[in-house]
């Protein structure tokens, strides 16, 4: 993906839906319709910050049938590297942003006999789009949504209105927890489970489903990792023949982009595998933070996902 393929949008709606989550509506500056997408898709929002460019993935939570605006929900992260703070503090009605075309890494299984959707906190966002696809589908589904308390339950009115009894709410501040074991042990054959939320929740759902005998092909999850901070290091790009400094609070991908070299990417969250880059030389170790490479691939140390992964090394040469 390159900047040439982005779409200029204007912020035409902002609503503070919970103390931490803002709901934005984005309309194309040139008018007309935005690209078609399917439920579960995300876009990359490109933000021109004061010191750097932020590119964050956000799920589209509007109806795939409504293409005059895109809707996203942004949670203010405590340890933001700048993107979510920029969206919360700097972006106003009328602000201009660039977005990349939608990509779906969290689509519904088209021949499932039932869908079980499990959301924790801001993890509700990809499901809002998916639910739009499910309303008319004729396939049974249920949504289990866990939040701290009612004031943190983003989009609850909309969900109550549209989902009725298919919505199951859990307020963990009041000691209510999703009964994962019972839920996953009693689903009819051909059910698919989808989970989006905090890392611990995703891990727990996967482990519980597996212990209930679920095969991996029926378990789906999405978690965009923010690139973790780390020690600064240097990288040499073999084809561009330049050396790039990666500071502690900037990702490898961002640093390479800032040096003027384009790397293909889709999710910027360690999920899609699109920015897969070959490691040509390494003196030290790779710090993998992605959800894409297998243990075997990590052990080989021949590839890296620069969107979220870093290195602790004396020398690193990439095939870029």
């Amino acid at each position: 993906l390159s900047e040439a393929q982005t779409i200029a949008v204007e912020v035409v709606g902002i609503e503070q839906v919970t103390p931490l989550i803002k709901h934005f509506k984005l309309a194309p500056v040139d008018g007309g319709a935005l690209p078609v997408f399917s439920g579960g898709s995300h876009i990359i929002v490109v933000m021109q910050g004061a010191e750097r460019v932020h590119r964050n993935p956000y799920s589209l939570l509007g109806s795939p049938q409504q293409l005059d605006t895109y809707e996203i929900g942004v949670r203010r992260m405590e340890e933001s590297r700048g993107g979510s703070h920029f969206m919360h503090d700097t972006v106003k009605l009328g602000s201009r942003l660039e977005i990349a075309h939608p990509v779906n890494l969290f689509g519904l299984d088209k021949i499932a006999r039932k869908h079980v959707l499990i959301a924790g906190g801001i993890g509700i966002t990809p499901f809002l789009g998916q639910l739009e696809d499910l309303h008319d589908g004729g396939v049974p589904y249920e949504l289990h949504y866990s939040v701290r308390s009612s004031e943190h339950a983003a989009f609850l009115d909309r969900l109550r209105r549209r989902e009725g009894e298919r919505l199951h709410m859990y307020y963990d501040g009041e000691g209510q927890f999703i009964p994962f074991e019972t839920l996953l042990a009693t689903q009819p054959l051909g059910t698919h489970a989808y989970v989006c939320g905090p890392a611990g929740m995703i891990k727990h759902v996967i482990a519980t489903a597996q212990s209930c005998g679920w095969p991996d092909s029926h378990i789906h999850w999405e978690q965009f990792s923010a690139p973790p901070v780390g020690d600064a290091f240097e990288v040499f790009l073999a084809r561009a023949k330049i050396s790039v400094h990666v500071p502690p609070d900037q990702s490898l991908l961002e640093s390479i982009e800032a040096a003027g070299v384009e790397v293909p990417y889709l999710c910027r969250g360690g999920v899609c595998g699109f920015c897969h880059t070959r490691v040509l030389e390494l003196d030290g170790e790779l710090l993998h933070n992605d959800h894409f490479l297998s243990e075997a691939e990590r052990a080989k140390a021949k590839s890296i996902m620069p969107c979220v992964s870093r290195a602790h090394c004396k020398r690193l040469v990439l095939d870029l």
Partner: protein
Amino acid sequence: MLVTGIKSKPVYAPLQADTRGRYHLMLGMGVGAAPLLRVIAEMRVAAAQSLKNTRVLFVPDAGAAGEIAQFKAAAVGDVRAFAGTPALLEQFRAILGESLMGTRLYVAGPENFIGLVMKIALEFNLNKDEIRAEECGTLARRVYCIHCRTTTENVRTNIVRCDDCERWLLVRDHYSRRLAAYMGVMVDAEAPGELPPLKEVFL
């Protein structure tokens, strides 16, 4: 002439117990008893408690009652014998309708039997990681006439006359999971009456 190297031709592997599953459903026919009994023995060693959640649906060869006795002796949860494939498939469909996630399927028998089982499993959205199949017994094929859409059963020869339209069909390796049949394509369309020699190839 058979057209080999077709990717859709199913590949089978020896059955192995998958103890990650919670429920185990075994379907077999004739010589398929041996692989299923082997899996049951594996399970007894690896996870004996799985046996009570194991069901066997089986079509014995005519006159053979020994296998059913062996399954019953193996103390699996439920063993049922059927006179033929259609009755077994009907029961299989009913069981899948009530089954829960966590079910693993084991199929052992001739390919045409496996294919018919898989066709129903597909309707219930069972994926590859929930099904294991071992081919044993006859290689006779179900052949789908791509011209009149009739399926001719128990085909053992390289070319076959369609049961319905009577065209001579070349039996290809091109397989449809949805139809549980190999594709049959008119063999003398360009030179009517010119047929390759008839050979028994699927024994």
